[in-house]
């Protein structure tokens, strides 16, 4: 399992691995927002947590279709399914690799981009905490969506439509926690709800995704 994680990380950071894609997309979204809504700092401050969360979510979505599709195309997925590692663990490890190459860098980059959106000083901590707790859910839910659409050509469209409603609860509570943090209010309730969603997804989604993969490999 460590070998699988190391392989996925190695592939992600090498040429054509798509490591920078999500980060670049996040940067583009956040840089363009002030141009779109105007330079009024009060407006930017108000929308900053929401924009940062939506940007991170869409950046995460961008790299999902590669999660199993590449392994499916070159036959690795068949071989992994017949390997001694349970398929649930394969899904889990690949979701972790996806998070390490997408969710974690996005979380670390968010405060830097928060400056561009005039995020209040007290909001930075809660923005990072909410993203750190929420992005694992985005990766495992995405892994489930990717497993469902793995055999389809151009499955990316269907994948986005399938995954988007599942992302909504995470987005609502994540953005709410970041917003409350930025306005200096208590963040306990949304943060606790989002952490609950995140942990439940991490616990259950690998099983759902493995079941979907088994059906798709037939």
């Amino acid at each position, binding site marked *: 399992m460590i*070998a699988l994680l190391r392989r996925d990380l190695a592939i992600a950071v090498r040429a054509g691995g798509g490591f920078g894609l999500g980060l670049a997309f996040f940067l583009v979204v956040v840089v363009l927002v002030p141009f779109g809504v105007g330079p009024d700092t009060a407006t930017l401050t108000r929308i900053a947590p929401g924009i940062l969360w939506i940007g991170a979510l869409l950046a995460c979505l961008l790299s999902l279709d590669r999660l199993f599709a590449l392994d499916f195309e070159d036959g690795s997925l068949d071989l992994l399914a017949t390997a001694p590692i349970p398929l649930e663990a394969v899904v889990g490890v690949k979701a972790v690799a996806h998070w390490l190459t997408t969710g974690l860098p996005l979380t670390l980059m968010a405060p830097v981009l928060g400056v561009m959106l005039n995020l209040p000083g007290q909001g930075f901590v809660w923005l990072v905490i909410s993203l750190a707790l929420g992005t694992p859910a985005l990766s495992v839910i995405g892994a489930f969506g990717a497993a469902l659409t793995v055999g389809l050509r151009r499955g990316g469209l269907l994948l986005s439509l399938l995954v988007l409603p599942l992302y909504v609860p995470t987005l609502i509570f994540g953005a709410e926690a970041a917003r409350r943090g930025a306005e200096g209010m208590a963040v306990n309730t949304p943060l606790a709800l989002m952490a609950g969603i995140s942990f439940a997804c991490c616990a259950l989604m690998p099983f759902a995704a493995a079941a979907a993969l088994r059906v798709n490999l037939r």
Partner: protein
Amino acid sequence: MLSVSNLAIARGGVPVLEGLSFALNAGEALVLRGPNGIGKTTLLRTLAGLQPPLAGEVHVGEDVLAYAGHADGVKPTLSVTENLDFWARIFGRSEIAPAIAAFDLEGLTSRAAQNLSAGQKRRLGLARMMVTGRPVWMFDEPTVSLDAASVALFASAVRTHLAGGGAAVMATHIDLGLTEARVLDLGPYRAAAGVGAAEFDSDEAFL
């Protein structure tokens, strides 16, 4: 090591083979023959546990089979050594030197797999079977894009494996020079059209 009784299999909900029974013992090789579309790939995938049989049973021990399909499972950006090392570790092993030697990959170890020729990539895919340490090897068209010398390398690797108490099942059209291999012609087992299709379709649709 592997036995099959009264097996019926389907591809895309359409039954392709039925009434198939055979057994494979240590040291034996079985060559599957039959025209395109008879169900060789489907049979191998069913044996590997990638899809359920329509009827009948496959008796095989746990962690016995290693499967090599049409695709090699090679990652283009990883080197030959990294690719083999990854699969060895997945199967809980670490020895890759014999596999590299057996398939004449010594000069290519540090080259990225995307820069290999089709034949070299196939040799890497076949070398992967050696690092799994599994006793029963299953190959689907192993000799595609191999030249005569590489086919001989492959045949000798299989023969060594058989001599070591292993077994092999392969679907192939060309003569590998494995005279000791049993040939199973799948033609007589072709499923009668329509039989069993109805109930299986509903099952698939439900899933």
